[in-house]
């Protein structure tokens, strides 16, 4: 008869943090369960006691018995997760019944060491978002980690949803981790994805704000575990962690409760490790290691647009660039409300084709020149024609970069739009003209029999000069259409 189980008794309780004795051979990340079925996971091990974080709510008192479970902290993964919303422990939360674990399913541990350098390869492929501003000026690569930050109501979530929806028919698997957001927000998110047909290739992992802090804390770990499962199948994965600011606050709560010494802004000393350890798991991998990629977009909400606090700066230092959203830009009607001058992509440019690359350099130059000239122009009424042209081009570019939600733009159209300000067609046109005719121009390049050949020719071009020359030929047709 071998019915020996490892057990322990509660010695101390502090909210969701429980200290237990016993458990002679327990390891970190093992799971324990109370007699009433509440689960907890082992966070640290002391000389005589272990520290357990409770994942279910139960009134725990000293002397209560806990048993070690057979499973460690992990979840069942498989293709059955696609189109579903689960909590960090793999329990479905979308009301669509149990997960159908038919076919091959395996249990993966949530805590995994990031794959080493031997398993990674250079990021060579561009991750197309369908958003002109990103794909041309701040391009992302497959396997890149790009921080998305901005203040409240600056359109971050809408942008992220667009990003997922725009991945339709690209084969990219999207994983959205909603960390400590209200249940109603999660519900809305699932509904939007469903109504736009994006849920079929998406996995939503969510722990709402009403759940115990340790469970919410596990959300990004689960998201990365699921992402790694798909990456190992050779798939390109887009992972959104919304948001790591809440995650850091919850970890601070857990750490302070566990008597860990507080550091800057009361965050524990290992908060950098916690986030770096997570984001390190993203990347572009060699075929021998699955061959897929994980493009990670951690999100952080800023207070009063201040990105110099500890968590945003930490995240900026461990990602390959950042997109800065501003509510003031959104109020001016710019969507997506990304501050181009303060946003950066350290990897994406190497993945862009030469035409887009030189074109985006040109556009950036105009934008930076114009911002210098704008200050001067405020003091003088009569400006030289060159200055006027630069300022007009800047206005045109800003207008062309505006993109309404749920309107993905294909790569050739993005390139055409950004080249137009350099053609004679737009030389004397103002912002209002473009505001009125932007949609018409896009439609024309997609459907007009005279312009479609130009659109088709874009991928074969070798330089931006060639492109501008080609577009000069479209001037007449466009002028007629925009009368």
């Amino acid at each position, binding site marked *: 008869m071998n019915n020996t189980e490892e*057990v322990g008794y509660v010695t101390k309780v502090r909210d969701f943090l429980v200290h237990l004795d016993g458990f002679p051979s327990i390891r970190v990340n093992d799971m324990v369960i109370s007699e009433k079925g509440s689960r907890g996971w082992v966070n640290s091990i002391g000389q005589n006691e272990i520290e357990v974080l409770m994942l279910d709510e139960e009134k725990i008192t000293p002397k209560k018995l806990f048993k070690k479970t057979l499973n460690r902290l992990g979840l069942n993964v498989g293709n059955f997760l696609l189109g579903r919303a689960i909590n960090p422990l793999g329990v479905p939360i979308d009301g669509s019944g149990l997960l159908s674990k038919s076919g091959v399913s395996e249990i993966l541990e949530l805590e995994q060491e990031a794959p080493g350098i031997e398993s990674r390869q250079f990021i060579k492929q561009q991750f197309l978002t369908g958003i002109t501003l990103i794909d041309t000026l701040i391009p992302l690569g497959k396997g890149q980690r790009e921080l998305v930050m901005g203040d409240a109501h600056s359109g971050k979530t809408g942008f992220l949803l667009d990003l997922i929806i725009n991945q339709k028919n690209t084969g990219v698997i999207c994983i959205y981790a909603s960390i400590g957001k209200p249940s109603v927000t999660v519900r809305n998110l699932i509904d939007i994805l469903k109504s736009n047909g994006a849920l079929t290739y998406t996995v939503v992992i969510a722990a709402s704000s009403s759940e115990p802090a340790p469970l919410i804390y596990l959300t990004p770990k689960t998201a990365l575990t699921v992402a790694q499962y798909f990456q190992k199948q050779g798939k390109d994965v887009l992972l959104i962690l919304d948001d790591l600011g809440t995650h850091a606050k919850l970890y601070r709560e857990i750490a302070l409760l566990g008597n860990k010494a507080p550091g800057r802004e009361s965050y524990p000393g290992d908060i950098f490790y916690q986030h770096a350890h997570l984001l390190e798991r993203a990347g572009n991998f060699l075929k021998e290691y699955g061959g897929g990629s994980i493009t990670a977009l951690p999100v952080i909400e800023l207070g009063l647009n201040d990105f110099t606090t500890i968590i945003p700066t930490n995240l900026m230092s461990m990602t390959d660039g950042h997109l800065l959203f501003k509510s003031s830009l959104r109020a001016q009607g710019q969507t997506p409300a990304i501050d181009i001058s303060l946003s950066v992509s350290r990897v994406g440019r190497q993945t862009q084709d030469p035409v887009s690359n030189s074109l985006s350099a040109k556009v950036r130059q105009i934008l930076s020149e114009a911002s210098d000239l704008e200050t001067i122009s405020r003091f003088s009424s009569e400006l030289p024609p060159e200055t006027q042209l630069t300022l007009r081009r800047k206005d045109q570019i800003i207008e062309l970069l505006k993109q309404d939600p749920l309107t993905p733009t294909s790569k050739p159209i993005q390139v055409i739009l950004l080249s137009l300000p350099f053609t004679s067609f737009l030389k004397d046109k103002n912002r209002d003209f473009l505001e009125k005719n932007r949609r018409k121009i896009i439609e024309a390049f997609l459907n007009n029999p005279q312009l479609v050949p130009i659109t088709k020719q874009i991928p074969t071009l070798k330089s931006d000069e060639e492109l501008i020359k080609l577009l000069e030929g479209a001037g007449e047709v466009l002028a007629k259409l925009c009368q």
Partner: protein
Amino acid sequence: MNKILDVILTNTYSISQLKHRLSLLKNHLLKTLFASKQELILTESESNWLNSLPKDFLSQFNQNNIYKIFEDLEKQITSLKPLIIYLTFEPDDDTLSQIGEKTRQVFGSPRSAGGAGRVILLDIKYNPALIAGASFVWNGLSRDYSLKAKVEERKMVILDSFKKFLR
């Protein structure tokens, strides 16, 4: 200090019994040493136990060391690791002594018998859900010899045999 605890543990088998007897001994000694007028009301088994303590054992305590000795004893007790037994009934003193003696015979190695000084102390817990039998916890390892565990183990077989009678 170990000698004092050893003497107390000679015929004390459970944690709750040990705590009760320590408090009894303390009250008795305080009354004796400080000539308190307050009467101690003792049951027969309590006075029997106090009388069974050797005279030279009681003479170790004096007005200067009594508080210190008991403070140390209490600390020692908290570090003791008992054998936890879950039973479906509350054992009386005689049953407890029988269980305790048997446990010490089988697993203990008291110093008086030339052993390493391991005196098994029991922590009896009441759990009627076990139905019958007992379960044990020692050093973080649990073994369940209860009827409940047996039923759980053969749940499907039992259910199947019940199903035969369903119409």
